[in-house]
Every structure is written in C-alpha cells, then in structure tokens.
C-alpha cells in the first residue's frame, strides 16, 4: 500500500506516493532522478549515498522514504548555486580530493554537515566526520586537505 509523503529536496517540495519499504536513496534516484546520490552497498557501510536530512548527514540507503516525510533533504545537486560551486566542491577540485568520483557526493555532504556544525575543525575532527565514507582511490589524504582548505575558505568569506 503506497503512502503519500511530502519531501523538500534541494528547496523543492515534492508530493510522492511511495511504498513503505522503499528507501530514501531509491526515491531520490529512481523517482526524482537525483542520481548524484550514489548506491555503493545499500547496507550503510560505504557512505556513498550520504545526504543531509534536516542538516544531518545520513546514509540515505538506511532511511525509509516515509520517515523523511515533512523533512528537508539536501543532495549533491542542491549544493552549488547555479554555476557557482560551493567552496567544498571547489576545494575538492583544487586539492585533488577526488578520483573516480563515486564516493565524492557523499564525502562532500559529510563535510558540509561537519563544517555547518564546526567551522574550524582539526584534521582529526575531519577524519571522524568522514569515517563512514569509504574511498578506494585517494587514500583520503587529499580529501582531508580539501575539507580543511574549504573550512578556511568558508570562514574567510563568510559563506555557509
């Protein structure tokens, strides 16, 4: 039996009829076409599907879509303003924080959740924040550097 939910995704309100067993990841990708959120394991182990739910980083594969009813979701597609990349996105590019890019959307959103809460994190705090986001390409060094550089840029420019 489908249930109707309303979901604000990247600022847009969507009314959707979903089966209760479907995950937020499936609804974002399959119903809303927001394929920037990646499916890596569907068991909450890799973090590739990380989105912000009311500002907190969650594995969208572990959230039932019906539990997101009435809440706000930010996906990677909602981060840049038009062609203006978010400073975290800029920093990942500039500091080589990505290779294949499959973990990148989730990694960037975990970083955003951290920096929203803690604008001046230490490297250790960055590592804790992205401990649930696996990356097989980079060895993480440049990801941590990217996030620290973004923090500096954001606090310098007053961007949020």
């Amino acid at each position, binding site marked *: 039996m489908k249930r109707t939910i309303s979901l604000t995704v990247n600022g847009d309100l969507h009314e959707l009829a979903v089966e209760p067993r479907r995950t937020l990841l499936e609804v974002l990708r399959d119903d809303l076409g927001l394929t920037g959120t990646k499916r890596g394991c569907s068991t909450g182990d890799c973090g590739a599907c990380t989105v912000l739910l009311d500002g907190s980083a969650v594995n969208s594969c572990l959230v039932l879509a019906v539990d997101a009813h009435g809440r706000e979701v930010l996906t990677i597609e909602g981060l840049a303003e038009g062609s203006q990349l978010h400073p975290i996105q800029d920093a990942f590019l500039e500091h080589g924080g990505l290779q294949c*890019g499959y973990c*990148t959307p989730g990694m960037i959103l975990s970083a955003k959740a951290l920096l929203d809460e803690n604008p001046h994190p230490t490297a250790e705090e960055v590592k804790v924040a992205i401990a649930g986001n696996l990356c097989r390409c980079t060895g993480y060094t440049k990801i941590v550097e990217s996030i620290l550089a973004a923090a500096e840029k954001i606090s310098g420019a007053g961007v949020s």
Partner: protein
Amino acid sequence: MSEFNVIGRRVPKQDGVARVTGRAVYTDDIKLPQMLHGRILRSPVPHARIVSIDTSKAKQLAGVKAVITAADMPRSGFGYGKDNSPLKWEKVRCVGDEVAAVAAIDDNTAEEALSLIQIEYEQLPAVYDPEEAQREGAPLVHERSKNNVSFSWTFNKGDVEGAIAEADVVVEDRFRTQYINACPLEPHICLASFDQAGNLAVWVPIHFAFMFRKDVAEVMGMPWSKVRVIQPAIGGSFGSKIDTEPFHFICIALAQKTGRPVKIAFTREEEFLAARPRQPMILDIRMAAKKDGTLLARDVHIISDNGAYNAWGSHALFAAMMSVTSLYRVPNVRFVGDVVYTNKPYGGSVRGFGNPQATFAIESQMDILAQKLGIDPLELRLKNANQPGDVTVQDVKITSCGLAESIEKVAQRIGWSEHHGKGGNRGVGVASLIHVGGGARIYKSDGCGAIVKIDDGGDITVIIGSSELGQGSETVQAMMAAEELGARLEDIRVINSDTAIKPWDVGSHASRSTFISGMAIKRAAEQAKKQLFEAAAQKLEARPEDLESLDSKIFVKGSPDRFLTFGQAARADLLRTGGDVIVAKYFYDPPNVELDRGFFGNVSATYAFGSHAAEVKVDPETGAVDVVRIAAAHDVGRALNPMGLEAQIEGGVAMGFGYAMTEELQVKNGVIQNVSLLDYRVPTVQDVPAIDPIIIETIDPIGPFGAKGMGECSTVPTAPAIANAIYDATGVRIKDLPITPEKVLRALEEAKETSKDGSEGGLIDE
C-alpha cells in the same frame, strides 16, 4: 622557469566538476525506456553436478519477462583456455557460479523470481587447497586438467644450483598471501540494448573496451561490427573491471531474449562473491649471496591459487615472474609458477597483477638475508640495485632507473638512521619494486590509437582509445595535447568512451595509459600542428618552420603580438576552395616484445621503480600494529601532473596498507564469509597511515615528455615495507598476509618461548 607550459603543473581533474556536482553519469544512472532489471541465480555450493533446473514458477510470476538457463543462450567457452561459460549447465565449480537468470520489470520482482527457481544439485567432493589439489586422487575442478594444474610458467637462466652451492649465505622461506577484493565503490554493472536491426549497445564500466567487444561477439555469435561498447563514468576498478564476465554475457542474452534493454547491477554482496579478487599465492623462495651481499641466485616456486576458472588473473604470474627475475641484479634465476584450479573464487587482475605477492616474498626475504649477512637492509638493496643500462636475466632492458635514489629518499624521509635497529617495539622497514612502465606486451599489439582534431572554433578534440577509471588519464592526456600543440588546456576536450568513435586500444591496464596513449597523442598532435601551421603560414606571410604557438595562438617566433588564433588558422584551412579539416591520427605501438617460449623478452618499453619505507609501533600486549607513516618514492620518469601523481601514490599506498594489514576475503570450504564492506574492512580514513609521497624524475628516453607509467606501482611494496618494519620493531617475522594482531601476538609468544628454551633467536633484531 620550466621548459614546459602545461606539463608539470598541478592540474585539477578535467572531469572533476561533473563529479563534484553529481552530474557525472555512471552506468547505474542510466535508465532507458522499457528497461528491465536482470538478476542472476548463483550456485550456493562449491562443486556440484546440476541435476535439474525448474524455472516454471519463476516464469509465471507477474512482471517477469524472461528466465534463462544455459539452454537459452550460447554455451561458448571464454577465458584463457575457454574453461568458463556464461551460464553453467553440467557442473558448478565454485560458489557464485551462474546457473539461471531473470529479467523483470523491477529489481524486486527479479529477486523474487530467483527465489522461485528450483535447482537440484548433486554435491561433488571439492578441493580448496592448491597443494592438496595437485595430489593424486584429488577431486578435479576441470576433468581435462589432471592434477588441477591449469598451466605453468617456467623460467631458468644460469646455474641456480651451482650458485647456491657456492654461496656464503642461502636463505629459504615460504610466504603466503591472501584473497582480496578490489572493492571499487561502484559495484559491477552492465546495461545492454538491441535495436531493431540487431545492433547491440552495451553501457558498461570496463577498461578493455575493444577486447570486451571481441569477447561478446565471439561468445554471443555476433559479428564484431554489431557490438558497440559505451563506457559511462567508471566508479573505480583497480583492475577488477577488465575481465569480460559471465554476467555481461547473461545481461546481453536477457536483452536479446526480451527485446528490451536490460540492466544487471551487482549488489555489494554479489560484488564480493562474483567480482574477481586478487589471487592468493604460496611462494617458496631461496636466495643466495656472497658474504659481501652480492646476490648470486634466486630460486622461486609459486603456487597461484587460481580458483575455478582462468580469468585474466591466471596470468598474474607474468608480473610475479618479472620481479623475481629482475628486481635487483641477480645472475642466476629459476622460476616455476603453477596456476592451480580449486573450487573457490577465481582470481582476476587487481592493481599490481601478481607483483604485490611476489614483492612481498622477495622484499621480506631481502631483509632476512640482510640480517643473516649482518648487512644493513638499505645497503644490501643499494649494492644490488638495478642501474640504467642493465639487461636482466629475463632480457628486461633497463633504461631510466631511479631505484637507488628511491631507496635513499625514503630512508631519509623515514629517518632510517635514527629509527632503524632500535627495537623497543618501534621500527622502520623498507621495500622496493620494479614494474612495467612502458606498456606490457601481453597481446599481439600493445598499441593505442589517438585522433587529434582542431575545429573552426579553435576547439581541440582528442579522441583516444584508453579509458578514464578515475585515475586521471583524461587530464594528463589533455595536458600532453596542450603542451604539444601550444594550446590552452581549457580548449581541449578528451573523448574516450565509445568504441564507435574512438580508435582501437588494447585497454587501460599494466600502468600503460599515460605512456602509450601519451605517445599516440603527442605524435597525432605533431601532425595536426603541422597542418595548422601550414594554414597559418600563408596568413602570417611566413614559413611554417618559423612559427610557434602558445596559449592557442600562432605567431612568428619572437613576435607574439601579431598572431592568429587556432580558430582563425583552422578556418583559413577550411573556408577556401579545396579546403581541409584538421584531423590527425596516430597509432602508437611501443618498442617492446612478447615473452618467448622460455619467457624471455623485453615486454615493456621502460620500467618503473620505487621504494616504500614504513614506521610502525607494535603493542606487545595485543599484537596490534600501528603503522605511523609511510614514505613512498616513485620513479615516474617525469611528473606530468604532480597532483595526480601524488594522488596515485597515496591511493596506492592505502590499498597496499589494506593488503598488508586488514583485508582478506575469508573463504571457508569454498564460501566467502565476509561479504559486506563492514566485515571485509577496506581501510577508512581513520585507518590509513600518514603518507609522504615522493616523486623521482629520471626523464625516460622514450616516454612522452620523459614520463613512464606508475599507476599500479604504489600498491606493490607497501606490505613488505610494513612487515620489515615489524621485524625491526619486534624481531618477529610475519610471512603471511594480512598481518593481523593475532598473527603478531602468536609470533611474539612463540619468540618468547623460544628464547626461554635458550635456543637461538631473540626478540630484538641485532
């Protein structure tokens, strides 16, 4: 001031914006009209006769569009020796073997349909140990391979026995390595679609596109020309997406049967079960040396635990053999490598391709030898290091070579003299490597085609056979084209993802893309530039040879103020009677050879070298090892994009660290026990040690701008460097990977017992 305009700059990934904004399209992001979802029913047992398959209930389920077994698709063999088939009909030989498949309107329906297929198996005795498999009376994985040896690699040069007899010191050890999964973040996936005329398009993250096409055509019984391979963004591979796998053929068969597009996407569990792992090896190795440390002989026998079929991994001994014959100067070498079938997951190609296994053994044993000789491990390595101009016993011709420099650099960065030999559960270790760096001729051609096109807008398109897997090849390719043409980097786009468009390439493997595609691009660009200059010369009233270009402008040397843009020059060539387009092509096939029957031959146009040094702290109470940091120096010929190189080093070290310390597919009675990322333990950001990437430039005489390949190298020597550091810290030697706390603790306890008994051996390295 650099002699280059673009080369040597830290350039962000050209495909990066799409990837940080979520706009890059991976195969799983593609939805075609009428698309169905495929699922595969896999064998739960390691060795069995298939007695019966009943698909009738599955076929009746609403939403199911096709259920197929081997009876419904070609049974053609594929893989080396054609020992594998897409769907199995008589026998299954390992857990995960494909027995039936379903296409349905959605994934849940397909999954439900699988549960309705009834298969009766008659279990057969199975064999899991590659040594037992060779004994008389062992169950046979393939009837035609008596004693289960699929094939062997044998090499012999010099007089190994004689050298060992005359040596001052001989060491002999057995090492073991484990199964690992490559674990790309994007699981394996395939989308196949036929048009009305029977033309097949396959969207697939594969980096062997033309070989994939050939495999598909041959197995499915189609003309090659009907198969088009499109490579969407690839979410990592590390070698695992090079093989054409049963699921690819099955996906295509389902699309053929239903007349609709079909997508098969692996679950993560399936990725562990059915993506090709790195094969375990048992390595028996003897090394002999003179008192002064001069190496005299190396005698190696490797058993490669191949699993049930010959995927590309059956050839991993190719790379293992090269390290055995050619890492350091060794005048007498014997190598025997047996590829042995077992009823287990079958190995594929994973970053380093047999080299991490061999280098773990060789480089661990170099330290054992050093200890026995009473020589500093660094000194032993430097004394025997390969030098430019050397030709090794396997006919490997070494040109540029930064091996000695890499040893010295990592030793300095890890603080060798302060930390080595101090004991007290803290230590440092070093290990080095050799790998192909200028292609690897494992096929009749080692070539790659490039097309460089300069259009009327001044925009430059590089169409290249090789593939971007995340490693950054597109970016480096654009940089090389920009450098050669004197163009702005932002004017260049790279197209590399469609066999209908791109020229032939033997695939992105063997760390070959930068070297081979780079040479192809460089030479195609030279020709395009010549044509462009000829067009510009008339307008600038100069001779073509007097012109130069910079930032996409052409001008007479020394007079940059009067110029034509690339667009103006291209238009001058095009917009006239008898005009022409500017399109140049080059197919670069490097000066290397296939191995001959004795396994001799200079298989690569150049070789890559490097060294890692690790610092560790060991907790003697728990056996836990803290790898504090790793210095990793790599001879890259020339650093084309230092940021990309550092990234390759850091990522490779992290993978090497996982190989050394945490990762193992635990296979019990043929069944993989840890099929989730949580249980398997890919290193997280909190696990990976601090990594100090060091770039060594040796300017290769034939590589593009002096560069050579290195993508795999950074994974190769990490494990032995750590094992050597653990020995330095504790005096215990771990000879099987991964180095778990349990193994360290057990070894520490055994060492304690031994020293209590008063027999030889102590806790602390002298």
